[in-house]
């Protein structure tokens, strides 16, 4: 969700970005928003079986790190 394809990336890339999601029984990363509060978007690492949340990062920080790496 953080890696938005360019306008000319083509159908496959856009389909993947918009529609295709892994649905693992286990650890997965999700985007949450603190909707009733400050409005922050968060990258939450959660186990879909146990519901245990093992990591929470600000989405803006994650995105900045992605931008710096590319």
């Amino acid at each position: 969700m953080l890696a938005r394809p360019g306008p000319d990336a083509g159908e496959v890339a856009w389909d993947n970005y918009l529609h295709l999601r892994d649905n693992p029984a286990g650890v997965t990363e999700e985007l949450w928003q603190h909707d009733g509060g400050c409005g922050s978007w968060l990258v939450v690492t959660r186990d879909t079986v146990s519901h245990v949340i093992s990591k929470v990062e600000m989405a803006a920080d994650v995105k900045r790190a992605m931008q710096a790496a590319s």
Partner: protein
Amino acid sequence: MRVASKGLIDRSKPVHFSFDGRTYRGFAGDTVASALLANGVTLMGRSFKYHRPRGVMTAGSEEPNALITTGTGARREPNVRATVQEIYDGLVTRSQNAWPSLDVDVMAVNDLAAPFLGAGFYYKTFMWPKRFWEAIYEPVIRKTAGLGALSGESNPDTYERAYAFCDLLVIGAGPTGLMAALTAARAGADVILVDEDSVMGGRLNAESEAVGHQSGALWAAGIVAELAAMDNVRLMPRTTVTGAYDGGMFGALERVNQHTSKRGGGAPLEAFWRISAKHSILAAGALERPVAFQNNDRPGIMTAGAVRAYLNRWGVAPGRRVAVFGNNDDAHRTARDLMAAGVHVVALIDSRAEAEIEGFDGQVITGAVVCNTGGRKALESITVRSEAGEEALQVDCLAVSGGWNPTVHLTCYMNGRPTWREDIQSFVPPPGAIPNMTVAGACNGVFSTHGCLSDGVDAGTAALKALGKKAVAVEVPVAEDADYALVPLWAVAGKGRAWLDFQNDVSVKDIKQAAVENFRSVEHMKRYTTQGMATDQGKNSNVAALAILADATGRGMPETGTTTFRPPYSPVAIAAMGAGAQGHGFAPERHTTSHKRTVERGAPMIEAGLWYRPSYFPKAGETTWRQSCDREVGYVRKAVGVCDVSTLGKIDIQGPDAGKLLDFVYTNMFSTLKVGRVRYGLMLREDGMVMDDGTTARLGEHHFVMTTTTAAAGNVMRHLEFVTQCLHPEWAVSFTSVTEQWAQFAVAGPKARELLNGLLDKEIDNDNWPFMACGDVSIGGVAGRLFRISFSGEHAYEVAVPSRFGAALFDELVKRAEALGGGPYGMEALNVLRIEKGFITHAEIEGRATASDVGMGRMISVKKDCIGKAMAARPGLVDAERPQLIGLKPVSAEGEMTAGAHLFEREAEAVRVNAKGHVSSVGYSPELGRMIGLGFFAAGPTRMGEVVRLVDHLRGVETEVEICHPVFVDPEGERARG
């Protein structure tokens, strides 16, 4: 009958209450069940399906039979367990599920028809014919089956939602829970101890065994007193933990005033708690299970542990001639306690031939079972079967024990599956089922008092370790430490009906029948027979039902497994869970600054999200809303109208990259917009569908104000937050919602400027304030903003002031409008005005429309990327045959049109597959003198002037309509610019 010198009741405090219209006397400390038993009342209810007479079976919240209705009128509360409800002076209770009375219930005829009403009866009988279901079967079933009924009146009682936090939550205050709480509390942990009973101590209050050198009840009271005196402990009696959730969160229901006559005022009847705990200890104990045998449901038959509880805790002998029947040593206690209290024990019957009975010198029959009973509304006799044959015994009470089931429910609420333990013939919680929860005592299969006390200390110590606190040594007092010896006995072989689920009338035969019909999975068996589906959720009967299913299917218990337990553990009133949400509490209300004045003018208010907006402003002499609406449309078209538009979302956007953000979220260009100008923008979702539309004004080089529709304000805000945090955190831009900060009014009509110029500190004209201009203005010295925009197609403005001036400005605008032959207008007129101009709202952009569907395909700029641009270009979304925005008008001036109607070709049959489009908005246009509408039609723009058929199957409307251009009034847009 009361037994002298027994029980924890206060005999100096008599309490009077009524049951089925008769007044009874009990004592403080009694439940309805104990007080009725003390008065010799054993018939307390009728079963769900067969209306069989039923008495109390247990002494706790698991009770399946003794369900009563408390209170009267609007305060009537059905399905209250007589075993839980404490009595107070003036308490009114009634039996349920019997007509005309508990004593003479004509529906008991169902019992005679029982051969036809077995497992799967509903599914088999009422399948055909289909229309009979609604007309006959369901009403009849609802009338004859079912439990208590609500009053149908609004609930006048107060409920509360409450929150608590702790280091350690201890669930259950029996020997295990008390020791666990004590261990943790003495070490300084912040402890909450919860128990569903009014008196803490659990089974210690129901048994005669000593703990240390005193009675168990006294010992428990001493520990409770020590805990109560500690600052770091909160005791919550009368509170049931109903669920375990993620992150150490628990739900709990506190029956705050159910045991008093206090109603209303500040005191809540019940409180629903969310308790957040770093660690928890489940010490929920165990529930005794009965044995199934023919006619095992007569009033007077109860669990052996319940008989001891009534005797030891409430000083009540549930019968004069009692027999005890069990498959385990624990049942022997009942015979011993009764004998010691001077109650005649007719016989102690143990199914085990080798059973050794100590401390009881009455008649003992080993290797025998109870195989049938006699009596109708009360137990009169039992039949005992042994090798010697069958023998009838005259008894009025039978205490039965089939063993104990650990109360594992809470540990199963997060996918945990309990594991079978052969030695205790029951299920125990799987380890680690709930994060940070320790399971201890009887609910973990530890059944001796001493075992529970020391398990409590161990659990408390383990919790302290997990919390990083140092334990202090706690001494475990001396207590009974007997082995729990039992041989499984689920059902006694025999011909008649042997009951398992008393509340839902499920018999052993029903379970076997389900297996025969191949409902072999526990989940299928449960639904087919309704085993465990009543309000008690089969707490006494599920394990036995599983054992019988296992036997019938030739599988073991581990393989058979259990059904899925789900919260709540015991019933919770919706009123408690949703406390505060009745009436106006259901949803917050957002009022505009003109709300008061609008309501004073008699305007009916309509909800728009959480906002309240006027539908129209009625005037004397008008009898229909249409008259008001037409008049208000006339204000705007001919003079000037005033409308509060503050509900539109307003987002203040600032920063050097504000233009970049707008270019990215709108399809069209905003970075090129000049300061002091406004532009209409269209916003897409990333999938290419239209998300919202609105105008954005540029107030400064780095300063914009975006408006959104009322409905989408929240969505747009979230969307902007997503874009600026997840996609472009590098942009230097900030924004915040200012919807509440600005009151904004539309001033629309040919006399709009005339009105404003009387009010503005500096006059405007068409040159310094042309169409789509914006800027700061001063209104009587108040700094405001003026936007020349139009949602009606007329010469119009929106004027904004800080909210605190809104009410005053509205009054002033309305007064001046009225002086000019205009006035305020509401949503109905606003809707007609915008339909006449073909302006879209969320009736058109309802999530399935693309930009080209609404005729704005060319608004997607080719010069830049934007959200939704790539996906909007998908072939399916630009297909020329897609339904596209059109105007509609009836061929005949009287023709009716309805929003939601479907559109068909003139000759086509009006069936779904032939639908070519639909009507999205309609209104009556005074200017055209007929109804007009907006809608979508396949390749609509190529069909101008053609006549199609409008059909509304729901409201029975069929009209010939002409497809036309969606702008009905002033298509050149001259008026807005004038």
